[in-house]
């Protein structure tokens, strides 16, 4: 099976003074196009490293990462940036909206650098913020902010939607709503969504669950029948 996203024996070493830390110690997995994948693991297991490498924010020390057939491990910083702007949609735990731009403007900010953007208003309406286009992040609730963040990511029309603990800063219901939005996006738009979380309870909603422990993939589960978010409780 040709993975849309594949990681082969990805290793990442950090140097902290004298000590060398192996943040990723040979991670292998693949994700198919249009899949909703969840990378799950406890703190310090190497999730963030995976995220960083996948997101083009960091490069692997060893191994190969291919996205849509492109080997991004060999990318230069500049190409990585291009990769980020064209291929990746990023949803942050803390939304990371530009505070003095309205919801619409925050989306437009991302669109401005994009080759084939979607209409910002449309996307915002899709994420359910059609009424709050001109609100500043501070005037929005966390969930709304995260919706803006998702809208911003989606509007870029990326190959992968990369979500870093999107519900981490949200309350349960809002978190659920966001997850639903993400799941819907994946299902309806066929978007490849990679969600990184420490919350293994979310796993049932994913098509593929990649468990990471001590810098290695401990388990990969293929969920033939993912459940809708609404049915998940945690």
């Amino acid at each position, binding site marked *: 099976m040709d993975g849309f996203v594949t990681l082969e024996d990805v290793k990442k070493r950090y140097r902290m003074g004298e000590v060398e830390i192996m943040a990723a110690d040979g991670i292998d997995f693949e994700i198919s196009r249009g899949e909703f994948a969840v990378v799950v693991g406890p703190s310090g297991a190497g999730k*963030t490293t995976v*995220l*960083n490498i996948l*997101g083009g*924010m*960091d490069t692997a020390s060893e191994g190969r990462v291919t996205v849509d057939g492109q080997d991004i491990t060999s990318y230069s910083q*500049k190409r990585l*940036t*291009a*990769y*980020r*702007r*064209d291929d*990746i949609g*990023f949803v*942050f*735990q*803390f939304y*990371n909206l*530009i*505070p*003095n*731009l*309205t919801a619409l*403007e925050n989306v*437009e*900010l*991302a669109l*401005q*650098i994009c080759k084939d953007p979607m209409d910002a208003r449309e996307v915002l309406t899709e994420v359910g913020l059609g009424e709050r286009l001109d609100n*500043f*992040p*501070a*005037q929005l609730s966390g969930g709304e902010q995260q919706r803006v963040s998702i809208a*911003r990511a989606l509007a*870029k029309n990326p190959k992968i939607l990369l979500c*870093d603990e999107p519900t981490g*800063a949200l309350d349960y219901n809002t978190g659920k709503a966001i997850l639903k939005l993400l799941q819907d996006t994946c299902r309806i738009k066929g978007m490849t969504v990679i969600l990184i979380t420490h919350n293994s309870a979310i796993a049932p909603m994913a098509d593929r669950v990649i468990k990471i422990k001590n810098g290695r993939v401990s388990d990969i589960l293929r969920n033939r029948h993912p459940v809708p978010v609404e049915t998940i409780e945690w």
Partner: protein
Amino acid sequence: MEKTVKKAGRKVKKATRKDFYMEIRKSPGRFLSILFIVALGVAFFSGIRASEPDMRLSGDSYFDESGLMDIKAVCTYGVTKEDVRAMERADGVALAEGAYSADFLYSAKDEQQVLHVMSLQEKMNRVTVSKGRLPKKSGECLADDNSEFKIGDRVELRSGTDDDISDTLKTDTFEVVGLGNSPCYLSYGRGSSTVGDGSIQAFLIVPEDTFDMDVFTEVYLKVEGAEDLLAFTDAYDDRIEEVLTRVEDLADERAAVRKDSLMDEAGEKLAEAKEELEEGKEEARKELADAEEKIADAERQLADARVQIEDGRKQIADARSTLYSKQKELDSARAEYRLGLAQLNEGKTAYESGLSQFEAARPDAEAQIAAGRQQLDGLQAQIAADEQTYQAVLGQIAAIKAQIEAIQGQAQRTAEDLEEDNPPGDTEEGDRPGDSEDGDIPAELLSQLAELEQTAQMLAMKIEGQRQAYASGTAELDASQKQLAATAAQLAATKAQLSAAESELASVPAKLSSGQKQINAGWSEIKEQEAKLTDGEAEIVSNEAKLADAKQEYEEGKAEAEAEIADGEEKIAQAEADIADIGLPKWYVYDRSTLIEYSGFGENAERLGAIGRVFPVLFFLVAALISLTSMTRMVEEQRTSIGTMKALGYGKGAIASKYIGYALLATAGGSILGVLTGEKILPYIIVYAYGILYQHLPRILVPYDWGYAAMASGAAMFCTIFATVMACYRELDAQPAVLMRPPAPKNGRRVFLERVGIIWRHLNFTWKSTIRNLMRYKKRFFMTIFGIGGCMALMLVGFGLKDSCYEIAKLQFAEIQFYDGSIYLEEDVTGEQVEALKDELNGEEQVSRYMDADMQNITLVNGKKERAAYACVFGTVKDIPEFVDFHDRKTKERYELSDDGVIVSEKTAKLLEAEAGDTIEIKDEENGNKKVKITQICENYMGHYIYFTPRCYESVYGEKPEYNSILFKAADSAKNAQMEQVGRDILKKDGALSVSYTHDIEKQLDDMLRSLNLVIVVLIISAGMLAFVVLYNLNTVNIAERKRELATLKVLGFYNMEVAEYVYRENILLTFLGAVVGVVLGKFLHLFIIETVEVDSAMFGRNINLPSFVYSLVLTVAFSLMINGVMYFKLKKIDMVESLKSIE
């Protein structure tokens, strides 16, 4: 329990301390930025403030080192040695020294210069020799460093007044043996003079004995204790003032003393003069009498001489007659001689003929004599024969007689005797007597005897006869012989006689010639005598002429003597009148401000102080704001930690102390750094810049000024601590729980611009974001604007200063006074000379127009304000716009000079506090002040002017103006060199005193203002530093604050450049906004500084030219870009992982 608490306390202290140091190590950028901005502020404040005392100190050290006088006093009648001594004894006076000085003219290459000649002083005003040596003897001099003289040059001075130069100096030619400078001349200015064109070009220093004057021209004093005081300070001024007052009082005393002594002296002199006059009179009288006597004598001598000459003539006449008679005698002698000679010749001929006769007759005679002798001899022989016969006869007789002998034998012998006695001529005769004698013989014998006797008788007779014949013949012969001999003798005698006569005659010619010679000699003597006589006569004639001359001379002498006496009497009368007029000598006592540029130096120092009070404030404000933002940011960043501390139970003070300590340490470090560098570097640069103007300052002293250092450091401490406390205050008040939570993100807020839909809609949303960002961080916004504005303002001031100062020459001479030069006329110029000059000007192609003008120095009075100004009267009113343009500086409204009043230059009016429409006064101490009405006030930069029309002048002064100069304007094509040629031609004409060119003044001014360049450089550099520190700091804070946002952008796929642009956009906008603020700020600052820096004699331009704005803007932008460039790397370093972190 307590112990543990204490221990814990110590541990806590240790922990907080560690936290404190760690904080610094963690954020060296913040720490250093506070440190540097404080250093900058402190350096500027203390440095520029210290420049003022440092400049004074540098000046003072030079003054003290060179022994610059404190007080100078001059007196209208000169300063006597007694005056100097009296001054030296005065209370508070440490030293007094008399000195000489005078101004002279010197002909340089093509111009006449005024040189100030000073005597070399020993005790004070010591000259610094830069080249060569000090003059040692009369005829040597040390020349001004700033002059064109070189060592070895000969300087020939001329008097600038009617007095001869020898009245003042022993020699008028000097050899330059050294170059140097005097503390009396700090800068380029050499002051003014009453001779020549009035402006001194250079000074010469000569040994004191070069001056040939009775009294000193001035006395210099040094005040006790003044050397320890700093010049230009109040302490010094007060000390000098104190002594100055005393010296003034003393001067009044000295004036009285001087007057008395002058009176005495004059009286004495008068008496002497009177006496002299009397003596002179007497002497004249005596001399005249002598002369008279001499003339009489001469007359007498002349008469004598005449008599002598008469005598001489008589003698000569006598001598001449004697000579004539002598000549006659000589002539007769000569005739006699000739006669004698003829006689002699006759005698000679007679003798010759006698001789020849004799000679002719002689042989006959001799033959006759010889024949006679022969006859005689025959006779004798006959006699002898007869004798024989006779003898024989006698013998026969004897024989007979023998026979008869008896008686006759005797007879025989007698007969023989006879025979022998008789010559043969006589023989015949003798024979005969002998024969005749024999006759007594006996008869035959007697007959024979008788016959024999007879025969003997016969014979004896015959012999007798013969003998007789013989005898007679012999006698006859003898006689004839005798006769012959006698004749011969006679002839010989004649001959002898003749030769005697001849010899006698021969001696005659010699005698004659000697006689003639004597006569001739006599004549020549006579001639000589005659010549002598003529000479004598001539002499007499000349003596007569001389006598006449002498008489005339005598008359003249008499007249002269009388005139002189009259003159002397008049002079005495005059002197008496003068004595009556001797006034109190006037003393003028000056302090150092009488020295050229001395006050200027002090004023410059003061101006520095003024600048120092303003400039650093800017830096301080910025420093305070920077500290505030930095500390606020720090405190905000450490919310959680503060919250934790609070939660742990630390008190507010303990928590705040960390931040206050942090700020304190940064500020203290900055202060120390600022003081140490600023107080050394800045004053040095500034005083050095002034050193271009005051080039003889031997050294620049920049000691640390702890007062300013403390002031600056204190202010900096206060600012930062205040800022820190302010920053901590809010956070510390909050509940720990609140602090532990991330702060509510700052609300995005709509900005005013959004309401202007048209603009807002057209804005790219990145710009929207930028604008909102700017509004969001107000502190940063204002600070950046302030920083950039300050930078821009500083640079604008720097460039603007240059504009204002440099431009004044251009403005003054291109827009206000646009004539190209002026010809100053001699004071006694005649109308014809002026006409001739104007003809020359008419003929010059290079001169387009000219106009008469009257330029005078006057003093304007308005209330208590007084100001020296130039009164300028223009000859032709309608031509004025061709030479001067009167207009308002701001409105540029043109004014016309009217007969109603005057136009006054702006600065003059400002200093006088007068306005258009006011009436001011022109000072006239003799005739009372004249009132004039100011009609307008015109833009003017250099000097003070008050302009009149001729009619206005007349109405003010009551007399027509006397034009003393001609203003001229060059043709457009004329070059400076051509103008100068025209000037030289003009100067050759009579009546022209000097020519000055506008372009010269312009150049001079430019040179002077060049010293500003360094100040401008300092300003630009400091502006740059300010901009750098501010922008760096703010950007750092900005980036730190927005790290997350920027990291997000990166994650979103913004290229580095795009991220940078996001930040830059704000910076660029802020830079331009700041620049706009800077323009306004700069304008005001510039105005303030110009007014502070401005000297009274000039008004600097208030303008800043467009290029200056451009330069300032370009530089500001450049600084900003530089910072942005540095920021780029900072941005690049932002880790995208930041975006994943939670908000702290």
